[in-house]
């Protein structure tokens, strides 16, 4: 479903991604871990199509298509979803209004009929129950005055409504207390399916106690330094990232 080959990307002239290779198949959950500044968030932004990140080399195939050719909104319509690390606020636009506009753009792109207000409301109620989000929150301005946990839950809720094929979660666990973490993880687990793939980006191992990945990749200095199964995450929890960083730099010393 997703095939990343030798991906290089830079922002403001700094090379952040330096040759990423990754293959994700439908139904799989991949976790991307790594220390701060290793390029985890950059990878998610590049995949989602943010224009401030410039791809300088490599390619990304999504269902056999060149993903990098598509604008951000087209990627979304093709089923790529990014749960933001820092969801933005849009004053005066309720989550429900926003989400209906989003869903209907996606449906229109796919040649489906737009959902009317009644059907949309039905869908929203169902999905709100799934991720345990308060209905009242959905009528408030998008993310305005939401707590950190409410914002993240709102991201997972939007994911549930939009039903993407590829969901990228960018540090969805950051800033969450343990209860919020459990609820968010439960929501994600309920959305796991044989057709849907997840890329779960996280700094800490604890999220992976709740969302159990099929594959774990460690990103160091813009490259995948090591890949493994879920036990790799536990090893990292124990030993930290230091040993992998040393190893990575031994392979290619950083020029002074």
């Amino acid at each position, binding site marked *: 479903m997703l095939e990343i080959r030798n991906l290089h990307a830079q922002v403001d002239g700094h090379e952040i991604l330096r040759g990423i290779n990754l293959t994700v198949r439908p139904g799989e959950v991949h976790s991307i871990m790594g220390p701060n500044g290793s390029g985890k968030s950059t990878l998610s932004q590049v995949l989602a199509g943010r224009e401030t990140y410039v791809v300088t080399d490599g390619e990304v195939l999504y269902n056999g298509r060149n993903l990098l050719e598509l604008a951000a*909104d087209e990627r979304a319509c093709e089923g790529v979803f990014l749960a933001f690390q820092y969801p933005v606020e849009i004053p005066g636009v309720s989550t429900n209004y926003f989400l209906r506009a989003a869903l209907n753009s996606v449906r229109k792109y796919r040649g489906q009929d737009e959902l009317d207000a009644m059907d949309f409301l039905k869908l929203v109620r169902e999905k709100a129950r799934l991720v345990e989000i308060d209905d009242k929150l959905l009528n408030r301005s998008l993310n305005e005055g939401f707590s950190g946990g409410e914002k993240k839950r709102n991201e997972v809720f939007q994911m549930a409504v939009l039903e993407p094929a590829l969901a990228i979660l960018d540090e969805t666990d950051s800033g969450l207390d343990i209860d919020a973490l459990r609820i968010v993880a439960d929501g994600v687990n309920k959305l796991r399916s044989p057709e849907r793939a997840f890329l779960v980006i996280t700094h800490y191992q604890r999220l992976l106690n709740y969302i159990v990945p099929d594959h774990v990749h460690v990103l160091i200095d813009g490259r995948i330094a090591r890949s493994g199964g879920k036990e790799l995450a536990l090893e990292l929890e124990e030993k930290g990232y230091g040993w992998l960083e040393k190893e990575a730099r031994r392979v290619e010393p950083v020029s002074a």
Partner: protein
Amino acid sequence: MPSSSDAIRDFAAREYKYGFVTDIEADSVPPGLNEDIIRVISAKKGEPAFLLDWRLKAFRHWQTMAEPRWPNVKYPPIDYQAIVYYSAPKRQGGPRSLDEVDPKLLETYEKLGIPLEERAALAGVAVDAVFDSVSVATTFKEKLRELGIIFCSFSEAVRHHGDLVQKYLGSVVPYRDNFFAALNAAVFTDGSFVYVPKGVRCPMELSTYFRINAAATGQFERTLIVADEGSQVSYLEGCTAPMRDENQLHAAVVELVAHKNATIKYSTVQNWYPGDEEGRGGIYNFVTKRGLCEGENSRISWTQVETGSAITWKYPGCVLKGNGSVGEFYSVALTNHRQQADTGTKMIHIGANTRSTIVSKGISAGRGQNTYRGLVKIGKSAEHARNYTQCDSMLLGSRCGAHTFPYIEVRNNTARAEHEATTSRIGEDQLFYCNQRGISTEDAVSMIVNGFCKEVFRELPMEFAVEARKLLEVSLEGSVG
């Protein structure tokens, strides 16, 4: 890779949707302004002596005045002698029904999406349509008549309700008020007149559509609305204008009078031709609008959505004379390309326990310049007066400007005035967030701006709110990047 800025450029390339000219023979006077022209206008309209006299006094006063230079707008000098001050579609003695209306004129309204007969029938709106200075169609008059409500063109009011006109004309905006108000008093050709008698609640929204048509014809509308004790009325004013090259002057005056316990709600959607992307053409909209809360517990509410005109200069205000009277001002002003707006309100508190609310939303895009200018004046006698002002600006792009000039004068210790102001920008992060959910940049911009304006839109009558949203979308052409 198709970028969001391409989408914006395409959007920017769209033309002004309402730019077309109707081909109708006009009955015009030669250009220029002097006492003879004023006499001709007055004679053509068969006016009584008091009105001609008032016009001449206004004209003589106007000659002693200088055009205001304090607004934060720039434009070349206006040659007042080059303007045609009167132009009427050629048909004497006004049509009695829609059948008598020039079909071409009706076609024009059709193009603008204002099917008179349908709108009137379906929405229960009585329309007093002004086409180049003279009323051409009036509907629902009979129904209003039964309730004793007078809703007609200003000329008709002068003919049939001279006493009311004489009593109220200039009582809120005297001809000495300002340069443009004086000019209007001297040369106004038509407008609307509303009188709602004691205790009557007007059962429908009253509505007027203005339209400038004949080339280089200044439009000088005059509207007078009087709500007698305990009455209620809601009035809608909407305008669009055809595309042309030369600048056109529009200097209207609107006067509202609310007696004891009366309520007047006045809503405007203004979409005069704003000029092209380089600022050529476009309407100069220099308007004086003021309401007098004459009686106790009276209420006047102004709601405006200003998206058009090359230059907008207007401060719809309220004089809160009656004890416990309430004044409100809700405004959205959008400037794009090279549009300039200097707009706001004046709330003059005289009576005790008077209250005013100001909510202003300014949106600047392209090279647009948007200025909020407001005066809150609380006089000595205004015990326990209260004002709340909220003034928000939004910037789209980096070449536009937002300016705020709030003036607050308080002369009573028991009064309270609050002022809040914010300035924001549509962020790249907001647009990316919307894009990431499948929403195009174009739709995202209009959604974010509409959200910003929500507090004002909810004050508009239903159909008007829908129209206003659409108007914002069209007006936001080429707004980012």
